[in-house]
């Protein structure tokens, strides 16, 4: 196995220790509870934002802890959701007296573990709201229950984080977060699987010249394996279901997040972005903000996740607010 690591059982804490050391002014790492907490002081009465999920999808979520985004993140083992103890510890650190919003991606493990944690904490009187992120456009509406939480998690954390920072109450922040999810769709493709540090094996084998269409994160396969076409056709495939589902019309403004899966060279990712953007513009849809890079990944998978958010004035205004986390930073 070609990995820079020590003991396979400590890759996650080793990573978190490094993250906190590299961004000492931004986050603090609590190794006992295995949570990452923001350092920037939060105004009393600020709604807390907590998220978490399987590790291996960096910078999700610890890379998004900080001013204007998450208050705390609880990273699980690689590709496994965090456990209730972690989530409860993170919640306690994130609660500034105005309640806490959980950003939960629609994976069984996450839904169940955040559910258990919320259950227990609510009995203690903590106010908790949840937003279920299920932006995966690869499943048709009839199978909406299977839609994974993908790139919209980043958008929700940024936008809801900005709203929380300006002091909006929990219900408002939760409603806003749900609005972002409802207006976002993601479609993913993979040109290779990834190698899990514990098993040392690729999660699947993909013959050269083929790719997986409709993947998520975590080394999951997609719906279909097809011959790998040129970039223009990949852009078509990724956009098709997104545009249909969001019912995008000429004049609509969108935020585009194009994330590599971890091993996609920037040169390819920007090339794909150019193709995606051309297509949107041709349909009269205006990409007014964009992020291109490794924002939600799957260890060393090759491939990309394309997320489109149908924007409006409020969302763009919140998008532009200052943010200072390990992996997203502007205006600060």
């Amino acid at each position: 196995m070609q990995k820079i690591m020590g003991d396979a059982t400590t890759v996650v804490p080793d990573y978190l220790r490094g993250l906190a050391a590299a961004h000492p002014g931004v986050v603090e790492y609590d190794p006992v509870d295995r949570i990452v907490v923001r350092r920037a002081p939060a105004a009393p009465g600020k709604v807390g934002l907590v998220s978490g999920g399987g590790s291996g999808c960096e910078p999700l979520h610890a890379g998004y802890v900080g001013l204007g985004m998450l208050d705390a993140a609880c990273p699980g083992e690689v590709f496994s959701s965090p456990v209730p103890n972690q989530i409860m510890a993170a919640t306690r650190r994130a609660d500034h007296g105005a309640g806490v919003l959980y950003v939960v991606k629609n994976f069984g493990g996450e839904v169940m573990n955040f559910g258990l944690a919320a259950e227990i904490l609510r009995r203690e009187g903590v106010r908790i709201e949840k937003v279920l992120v299920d932006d995966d456009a690869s499943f048709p509406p009839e199978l909406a229950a299977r839609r994974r939480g993908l790139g919209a998690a980043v958008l929700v954390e940024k936008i809801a984080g900005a709203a929380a920072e300006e002091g909006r109450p929990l219900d408002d922040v939760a409603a806003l977060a749900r609005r972002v999810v409802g207006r976002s769709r993601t479609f993913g493709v993979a040109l290779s699987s990834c190698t899990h540090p514990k098993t040392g094996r690729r999660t699947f084998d993909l013959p050269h010249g083929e790719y997986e269409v409709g993947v998520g994160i975590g080394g999951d396969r997609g719906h279909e394996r097809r011959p790998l076409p040129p970039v223009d056709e990949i852009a078509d495939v990724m956009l098709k279901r997104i545009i249909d589902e969001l019912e995008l019309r000429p004049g609509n403004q969108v935020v585009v997040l194009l994330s590599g899966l971890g091993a996609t060279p920037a040169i390819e990712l920007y090339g794909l972005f150019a193709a995606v953007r051309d297509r949107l513009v041709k349909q009269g849809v205006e990409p007014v903000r964009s992020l291109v890079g490794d924002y939600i990944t799957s260890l060393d998978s090759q491939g990309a996740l394309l997320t489109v958010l149908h924007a409006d004035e409020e969302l763009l205004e919140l998008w532009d607010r200052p943010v200072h986390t390990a992996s997203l930073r502007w205006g600060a």
Partner: protein
Amino acid sequence: MTLVLSQDVVTTWLERFCADVVAAESHLNQLDAAVGDGEHGSNLRQGAVAVRALLRDRKFGDIQEQLMAVAMAIVNTVGGASGALYGTFFLRLSDVGAGRNTLDLAGLTEGLGSALAGIRELGGSAPGDKTLVDAIHPAVAVLESPSTGSAGLVAALDRAATAAEQGRDATAAMVARMGRGSYLGDRSRGHIDAGATSMAMLLRCLHASAEEVTS
């Protein structure tokens, strides 16, 4: 006298399961790799380590306390879907152990039925979805059938474990509708479900531990 399982037998059951899980780690990983992310065995192994430590270090007043502690240890070490689901299994099962140091067949049947219900609630899954429900569901059905009661505890648990194993094998033909396998659509067919495999192991260990006491 009706045969009952003492708290020590419950401990034996859990230790046996822990040992089997550790031995089957890579097998379970492989099964999970076919349609999921390939770490079901490693997940459970972590739980096994925690449960063993718990059984070694702590004394429990009754079976409820014992199984509740096991449930929390599992939930907080296994992680993922299976951690929450196995945790719920033991949490629900613990209810029938309140104030008791033994479990009889009726208690076990009630407890396992409630565990199944808890798992279905939390995971939203039904039999046929290609999950661990496909192992525990037929086992509970066997235990609940009137003819089983008369067979005696060990024989009943044997039949239940066998039903779980048949249920496990039957998942090979199913298309996953829950868990990571569900992302694959038709391509999930042809593989035995990892969680159903570990659940069948858990029930076979229960039978084996009961048999051990009586022999």
